[in-house]
């Protein structure tokens, strides 16, 4: 008993330390056009933020003592944009040496110094879904982030208590990795086989451990612990939301069948350029889709793409979001959402939902963010011009009521840590994840280092 108390104290104590202390703000945003997403558009309305939460929405609100007022007359206030597919703020993207790496965790490799975070904030983005790359059939667990830029502590970027998510990948990327290493999978059939084998292994693992736990013998011997299998079991048990990189309708449909067979329900297809072909099947399964607005033609498997994808999916009842997968597109996801009005005539609310509430639902954080409602986190973007207009300019971005971007005070050098031996690091707007996309060429091999063929 004493020992248990000791352990409990230790756990509480450790928990206390690891809990990062994030900043929360108080602010009153006055007299803006509030695009709530869930409760319509409110003209000349104030939003009061207390301790990082939206505490009141209404007219003629008074700022409590000491709370800063921001005049948003003529401006638009919308929920912070959420990017359901991003690789910014990560030190590594792929553990590409193996094709099933459910055990790895993007929470281990958060890079709070990535200037792309600030660029995303400057596009009104407040949260990203930091995904493992697409080199593996089953990649690693992802991390949902809040873009609290300015810290050196990676823990402070984590979206507290966001559900666990994991990256899967189908098609050309994992098979290219497999072929280049001479390992499975080298075809789409191999991808399916690996998925089924992995889940069957996980079922066997689960029953081995269940038998061990049920065994009353005090001298029982524990079976081998396998973090990869632990994660796969949690997927089977519905504790981890699956986000699957996919393009073609046949492979999307394949995964629906696999997940049906194994009873896995929480599934979002990422990219899913051909999802429009299986929209009704997705709706029936309850799977959602996170797509590009109109990005295509960068490889064969995206040949049959359409800018109407998001609209077709939405009209067929599939929960849909629009993502960036890029350190550049992330800066203007509001334009990406607006494209669905050009191609498909979505309403303002539908279009904005694609980059706010819908991705929040896909990440299981819609109880906290994705709309402007009392009680939700004060993750908010203020725009000059309607965010769906080509003239839209993001002017301020708040996370937990703390202002992380202000166009009026936009310091040119946003780097957090500086290399004192270099004036400017080699930073380009296209960042590391571009290398990972074509990783087989991007990585210099050790042998190439000493090769005479320069």
């Amino acid at each position: 008993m004493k020992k248990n108390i000791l352990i409990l104290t230790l756990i509480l104590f450790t928990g206390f330390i690891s809990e990062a202390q994030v900043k929360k703000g108080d602010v009153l945003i006055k007299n803006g056009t509030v695009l709530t997403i869930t409760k319509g558009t409110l003209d000349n309305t104030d939003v009061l933020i207390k301790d990082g939460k939206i505490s009141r929405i209404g007219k003629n609100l008074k700022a409590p003592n000491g709370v800063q007022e921001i005049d948003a007359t003529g401006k638009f206030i919308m929920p912070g944009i959420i990017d359901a597919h991003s690789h910014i703020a990560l030190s590594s993207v792929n553990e590409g040496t193996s094709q099933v790496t459910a055990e790895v965790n993007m929470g281990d490799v958060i890079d709070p110094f990535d200037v792309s975070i600030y660029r995303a904030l400057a596009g009104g983005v407040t949260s990203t879904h930091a995904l493992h790359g697409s080199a593996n059939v089953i990649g690693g667990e992802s991390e949902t982030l809040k873009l609290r830029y300015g810290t050196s502590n990676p823990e402070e970027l984590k979206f507290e208590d966001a559900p666990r998510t994991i990256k899967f990948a189908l098609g050309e990327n994992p098979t290219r990795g497999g072929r280049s290493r001479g390992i499975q999978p080298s075809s789409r059939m191999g991808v399916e086989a690996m998925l089924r084998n992995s889940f069957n292994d996980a079922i066997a693992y689960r029953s081995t451990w269940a038998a061990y736990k049920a065994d009353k013998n005090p001298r029982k011997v524990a079976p081998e612990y396998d973090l990869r299998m632990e994660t796969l079991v949690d997927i089977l048990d519905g504790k981890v939301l699956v986000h699957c990189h996919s393009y073609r309708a046949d492979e999307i449909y394949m995964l629906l069948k696999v997940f049906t067979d194994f009873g896995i329900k929480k599934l979002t297809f990422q990219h899913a350029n051909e999802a429009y072909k299986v929209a009704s099947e997705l709706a029936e399964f309850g799977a959602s889709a996170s797509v590009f607005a109109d990005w295509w033609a960068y490889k064969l498997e995206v040949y049959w793409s359409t800018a109407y994808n998001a609209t077709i999916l939405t009209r067929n009842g599939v929960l849909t979001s629009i993502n960036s997968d890029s350190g550049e597109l992330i800066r203007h996801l509001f334009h990406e959402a607006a494209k669905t009005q050009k191609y498909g005539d979505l309403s303002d609310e539908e279009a904005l939902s694609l980059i706010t509430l819908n991705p929040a639902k896909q990440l299981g954080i819609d109880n906290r963010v994705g709309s402007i409602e009392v009680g939700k986190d004060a993750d908010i973007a203020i725009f000059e011009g309607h965010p769906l207009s080509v003239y839209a300019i993001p002017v301020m971005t708040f996370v937990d009521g703390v202002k992380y971007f202000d166009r009026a005070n936009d310091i040119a050098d946003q780097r957090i840590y500086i290399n004192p031996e270099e004036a400017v690091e080699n930073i380009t707007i296209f960042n590391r994840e571009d290398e990972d996309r074509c990783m087989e060429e991007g990585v210099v091999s050790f042998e190439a280092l000493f090769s005479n063929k320069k």
Partner: protein
Amino acid sequence: MKLLLTKTIRAVFLMLLTVSTVSLNAQSDPTGESAVTRTFAITNATVIQAPGKELKGATVVIKNGLIQAVGTNVTVPTNAQVIDGKDMFVYAGFIDGLANTGAKRPENTPRPNDLFSPDPPNDYAGITPEHSLLDQLDIESNTIASMRKEGFAISHSVPFGRMLPGAGSIILLGDKKHADELILSKDVTMFTQFAGAPGAYPGNVLGIMAKYRNLYRNAENNKKHYDSYAENPSGIERPERDRVTEAFFPVVTKQQAVMYDASGVLEVQRAMRLQKELGFRLMVGNVKQAWDLGQMFKDNGTGVFLSLDLPDAPKEAKGKDLDEMTEETKRLEARKVDFYKKYVGQAASLANSGVKFGFSSLDATSTKVKANLLTMIENGLSENDALAALTTNAASLLGIDKITGTVEAGKIANIMVSNAPYFTKDSQIKFMFVDGDKYDFEIKEKGAAGNGNRSAAAGNDPIVGSWTYNFETPNGASTGKMTFAKDGDTYTGKMTSNDGAPDANLQEVTFANGTLSFIFMIDAGGQSVELVVSGTVTGNQYDAEVTVSAFNFSTPMSATKDGQ
């Protein structure tokens, strides 16, 4: 007659005594190298027994490898070699918290035929925690002498490798005949790095973190299995004798700490994340960017060894260069200076937040150690805190404070003697005692000591001229010419490879105390890769090591000066 008899008896007795002494010393010494005596007395010196504890006009007696007495009223033993310590300063020998000192880098593990990249053999994956520094310890390694020359008597040295290279041991930086004689404390830490296997799992920090958790959790379970089998094997499956899991047992039971090479602020926090989850005892070494982490270190009780390597100071623009600078460039330059200050002020800021730390020479050049310490002191580190980091704090972090770290009777005779207070620019180390053995160093003339170079007369420079070099690469031998020139106090150099690659300019060429170091960049498939070369010049021979930190690789290089 009686008197004669007594005399004879005494003579015989003395003879016998002499004979027995000789036989006790075992072999004769044809080399004439062994010390005449192991008893020493440093008299009338300023003795800094511990940080802030100074004795003036004191005597230190060393006998049988131990400090026998320290004080102002100490009798000098008759058989002692007396060192006049007038104007000399006596310190405890320094302790290096994390280094490869004494370790010889093994041949790279060749890529196995038919490598299955998701599950490579442990030695290729770099998962060899069952290895020990002792497997790589080489008494001939010149790193031992070069660190001793800088005042270090003890090093916590770790083997070369990848993710889990093996156990670190605490060694004495002495000149010994057998590797065993160097060992003070064997296998005290499990050394861990964020270094992935080339093209195999774990390939990067993602896989390394996961693999570490997996190994640790299994070791916890396996330990229970082993224990219950040891207690009573009847009816229990025989545990597999897995060397990797067995190597984790002392970590799981917290007898052995885990030492991470964690130079960056993110690596430190990643190591701490694993520690919080798994609960092992954590030490981090080679730390370069921890100025924000003081509170975290204190909360977690992490043992910290800061890097003795520092970035080069940004050059201040003057005159025309300054006039031509845009405002933006000026701001960028100012930020470089700000961050330079953070690097050089790291030790001071951690000391101020109450963190007890030691130092690590892992990435440092031995000849720059003192200059870097002085830079840290200029940037706010107190001399007492610097000395504590080099001696008492390092000793207590490594659990050897009962036997070393101070100049006190009963401790191991690890002593450094300098000709001026150590933390002054012109001080030079005159003697080192390691484990009671004395090492003498030549004091250089003032002026010559000023720039730290054993500056040879112009025209007779040991470096300037053309050299033929040769080193092994994974693709075979690379040979060519290196030429060095000297402009004032600055060396420049160029390297021309015989394989037709473009000439490489040698940067940061330094030659001090017989050590020639430089770096050069080569182009590898469009990516610029830095190679660091450092080694000793003996006459017309240069023996060095080429290190490519980007690939955690090094290889020996030799060069011969042409035309001699």
